[in-house]
């Protein structure tokens, strides 16, 4: 009788004795359970701790958790709830996404670039991650059909309807309509065409996610190149017009039109009609842009606060990003002041 009574009393007293579960403990616990735990194991990653947390209108938190990998750290989004008993994880990404993200990162099949911060060292709010390869898009909600598209009223770009639905779920279910986070991480196959890549960007941007972090492969590991989707330009508080850098894939060289307010800058030896310069490699491009600046052909370059980097449809993402990588240091621009654009034929 006494012992049974004691057990009841101890059970009542225990919650006060046990300390509340910390957020990092909750992340570790969720990463070891169920199908998500199996995916974490299959991806050969292990939880390290919280990277970012944002309190949502419904009282829960959108969080980004850092995971250790063999060579690079990984980031996964989650939602967490804080109660008097401590932290618990409410939502984790689809296992298919976890494995897909780990595979594309390990394969090295990412655009090559040196500019930017290491992916897990970029201080930012939780972002929607996407794995984009030809014919397939993986989101934390699973896979999207890329053939279900709606042509935009003007132009050549198309909205990918299933991706649009996934973005809406991210905003309503994960972010609880919090207006703060507006970022998207894109793991993109460098062989994807600029047209297909811009279809992805326009689809997410139309839902309000305009801060684009292109995950790249650099000589020092995985990095994040932060740029902006073109729709952000419409609501940008910047008053000065952007410098426009247009990239054209010509036969043996890459042509660039560089201009501002409709005026195209002309280099001394343009390679083709209406081109500012032609480059045979990203390195020569940077040298030529620096020369143009030194020759004061860019009279307004000091006033440039933001730029748009655009390319034609047949340029691959890998090609474009290696040149975009040179635009930031050449023009002394911060990456998030550069918008991505698309040149229609």
């Amino acid at each position, binding site marked *: 009788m*006494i012992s049974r*009574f*004691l057990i009841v*009393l*101890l059970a*009542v*007293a225990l919650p*006060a*004795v046990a300390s509340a579960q*910390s*957020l*990092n*403990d909750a992340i570790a616990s969720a990463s070891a359970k169920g199908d998500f735990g199996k995916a974490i194991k299959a991806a050969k990653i292990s939880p390290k*701790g*919280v*990277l*970012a*947390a*944002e*309190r949502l*209108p419904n009282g829960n938190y959108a969080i980004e958790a*850092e995971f250790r990998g063999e060579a690079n750290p990984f980031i996964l989004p989650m939602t967490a709830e804080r109660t008097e008993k401590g*932290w618990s994880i409410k939502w984790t990404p689809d296992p298919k996404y976890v494995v897909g993200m780990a595979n594309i990162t390990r394969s090295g099949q990412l655009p090559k670039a040196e500019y930017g911060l290491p992916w897990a*060292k970029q*201080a*930012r*709010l939780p972002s929607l991650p996407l794995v984009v390869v030809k014919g397939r898009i993986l989101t934390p909600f699973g896979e999207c059909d890329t053939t279900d598209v709606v042509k935009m009223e003007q132009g050549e770009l198309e909205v990918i309807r299933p991706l649009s639905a996934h973005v809406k779920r991210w905003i309503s279910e994960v972010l609880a309509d919090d207006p*703060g986070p507006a970022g998207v991480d894109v793991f993109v196959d460098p062989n994807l065409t600029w047209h297909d890549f811009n279809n992805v960007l326009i689809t997410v941007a139309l839902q309000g996610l*305009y*801060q684009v972090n292109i995950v790249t492969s650099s000589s020092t590991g995985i990095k994040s190149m932060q740029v*902006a989707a073109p729709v*952000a330009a419409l609501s*940008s*508080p910047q008053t000065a017009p952007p410098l426009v850098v247009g990239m054209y894939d010509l036969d043996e060289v890459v042509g660039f039109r560089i201009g501002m307010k409709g005026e195209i800058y002309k280099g001394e030896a343009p390679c083709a009609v209406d081109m500012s310069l032609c480059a045979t490699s990203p390195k020569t491009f940077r040298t030529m842009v620096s020369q143009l600046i030194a020759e004061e052909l860019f009279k307004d370059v000091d006033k440039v606060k933001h730029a748009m980097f655009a390319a034609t449809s047949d340029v691959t993402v890998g090609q474009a990003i290696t040149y975009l990588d040179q635009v930031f240091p050449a023009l002394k621009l911060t990456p*998030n*002041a550069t918008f991505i654009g698309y040149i229609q034929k």
Partner: protein
Amino acid sequence: MKRLLIAVLVLGCLAGCQSQTKEGPKPTDGGTIEAPTVTDPMSAAEAWCAQQDSKPQVLRLLKTADKTYSAVVGVKDDPSAEATQLNIVYETQWTVTNAQPAKGDTFWPSL
């Protein structure tokens, strides 16, 4: 039996009451604020909030460097409540080392 019962109740109360009456972070002469032993940066921010009269909540937490986090605490959707920015550093434990009024434009990158 009565003695045992009292002992168990006292034990339970000690554990429960300790967390209620534990001394919280106090500014030192240099303005440094010491938090109780905590295992992660979120717990450090929460411990700091628990010691404030206004009982703010953690609104945002961001890793800004190795072993360093920034947090914004305040009362969400209350414009009259001033948000505070905390600097949280890991030394031998996660500790709030500085608290100052939040400056949105410096803490949050804007386009």
